[in-house]
């Protein structure tokens, strides 16, 4: 991904302005450095305003007592690190953090990862029509808009007429109220397994067939082939996949569409908690920013691990 393939390091700088199209000059259209900077500017300005600035501003906002409703509505006050110390003793926050870890751990790291791998593993020798059918279903779950699939699950789990209750003969069971966490975890496995499946399908293609053949001839059972031949070869893909789906699931707002964080905050993950704290009711933006910062830092850690790992892998 994103490997700079063309640049040769430590080459003499080309003079600014239209340079003669020499053999080593990549600037074949004669753009020149200034025009090139101008070309890159609109994209970079948009990114600077709508990605870089908000991230940095969060640092500052987290230090303010700033609400759009309530007493401090008009005059944001500097309160230092109080938002952060309040956050740590806020039971709603610690609960949201705990639920988020549950959500990420069970739905992404375990659920999507394992199910995606199993599907990819199974697809290698599956009959074409089975493979195509399952593939289409799994991909549909992934590409349909979030608010549509959320409603599909409402219909599936409905108390009176839901399909699930009809199949299990459990009419009257309110799944989203009785087991909200289980619902959003299973929902997210359904929703996101496609990515792991695609990634592992590609990864399994890199496992040399001859290695598997040798292992099979040596009498290794499928499970032993998996452990001793396949997993060591695709180790890197496993890490890539786990980091990416962890990052996405950590930031996933879709549980809100399904349960609204309820009942009783029982399925209130961090993104939903931030939304409710900062943008609903009293709109405590400063306090909400403190949590946003935490989310940013968590994302940063995952992304840095990922990028270091990508760079290391290329050496």
């Amino acid at each position: 991904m994103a490997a700079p393939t063309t640049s040769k390091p430590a080459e003499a700088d080309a003079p600014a302005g239209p340079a003669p199209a020499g053999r080593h000059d990549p600037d074949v259209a004669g753009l020149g450095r200034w025009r090139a900077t101008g070309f890159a500017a609109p994209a970079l300005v948009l990114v600077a305003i709508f990605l870089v600035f908000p991230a940095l501003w969060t640092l500052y906002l987290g230090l303010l007592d700033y609400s759009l409703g309530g007493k401090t509505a008009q005059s944001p006050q500097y309160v230092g690190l109080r938002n952060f110390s309040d956050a740590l003793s806020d039971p709603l926050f610690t609960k949201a953090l705990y639920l988020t870890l549950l959500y990420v751990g069970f739905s992404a790291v375990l659920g999507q990862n394992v199910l995606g791998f199993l599907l990819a593993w199974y697809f290698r020798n599956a009959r074409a029509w089975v493979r195509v059918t399952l593939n289409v279903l799994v991909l549909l779950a992934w590409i349909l808009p979030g608010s549509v699939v959320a409603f599909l699950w409402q219909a599936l789990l409905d108390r009176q007429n839901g399909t699930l209750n009809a199949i299990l003969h459990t009419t009257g069971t309110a799944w989203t109220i009785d087991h909200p966490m289980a619902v959003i975890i299973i929902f997210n496995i359904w929703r996101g397994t496609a990515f792991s499946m695609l990634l592992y399908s590609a990864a399994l293609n890199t496992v040399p067939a001859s290695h598997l053949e040798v292992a099979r001839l040596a009498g290794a059972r499928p499970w032993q082939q998996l452990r001793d031949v396949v997993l060591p070869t695709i180790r890197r893909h496993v890490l890539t996949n786990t980091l990416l789906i962890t990052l996405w699931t950590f930031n996933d707002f879709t549980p809100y569409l399904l349960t609204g964080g309820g009942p009783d905050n029982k399925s209130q993950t961090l993104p939903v908690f931030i939304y409710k704290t900062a943008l609903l009711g009293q709109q405590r933006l400063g306090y909400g920013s403190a949590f946003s910062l935490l989310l940013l830092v968590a994302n940063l850690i995952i992304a840095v691990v990922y990028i270091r790992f990508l760079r290391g892998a290329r050496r």
Partner: protein
Amino acid sequence: MTAIDPVVRRTVSRIGVYVGVCVATVFFALPLLWLVLTPFSKHPSYKATLDGVSLDNFDRLLHNPQLWRSLRNSIYLAGGTAVVVIVTAALASYALSRVRIPGRDQLLYALLLLSSIVTGTAAMVPIFLMLYQLNLLDKQFAVVLVLSGGLLPAAVFMLKDFVDSIPRSYEESARVFGASPSQILRHIVLPLIRPGMATVGVWSLVQVWGNFLIPFILLSDDKKQPAAVVMYTFYDTGGQPNFALISTFALVYSVPVVVLYLIVNKRYGFSFQGGIKG
């Protein structure tokens, strides 16, 4: 370990696989049933059954201006974002690919890092506040700019990889024959990178079409909200949802994404990933 007859073991494991595949198929198909059946049902409800086929539900949808307006808004947001992303990403990625701007590689890494950490969820508070203070809440073009900013890093990456893979000889020969930079860009480069631009454009369309959070927090006027948000407010408002409308609307709203996905997948074997989610 006790010795198990290999034939028995193979049979058992094969049965296990069949059961697993059946369970997986049911698991992935079950929620989708409702979307496929209910729009054509005579008595639409939460039930995913087809009791009597009719197209009456679509007729009702046709006569609902609010829902058509929301689809128009979706087209505006998705189309506007796609245009902004295509134009700015094409310019930037060409320049970054062909001209050695100092610090380019670091810049690209910083972009990669940024696009993955500053998600819509993590940045919703500062973005909301920024637009609030600039008096840009409830403005669709502001949503387009916010979404573009979020998609651009990944778009620049994809397009730069694409431009890197195009040989320079076309541009070189045009240069030798005395073409000016702007002529080279218009007549040589643009046609060459058009497939890459199309891919990035479709990718942006799909990302925005399904995006719920950003328009949800930035647009409060229901006349301006896109289908993603209207779909949600539709069943969130409490009481019994209007199943005739909601089922057909869900289907009509979903079809474009599926079609776009199929087109891109067929032409480029490309799968959507990355970008801001949620």
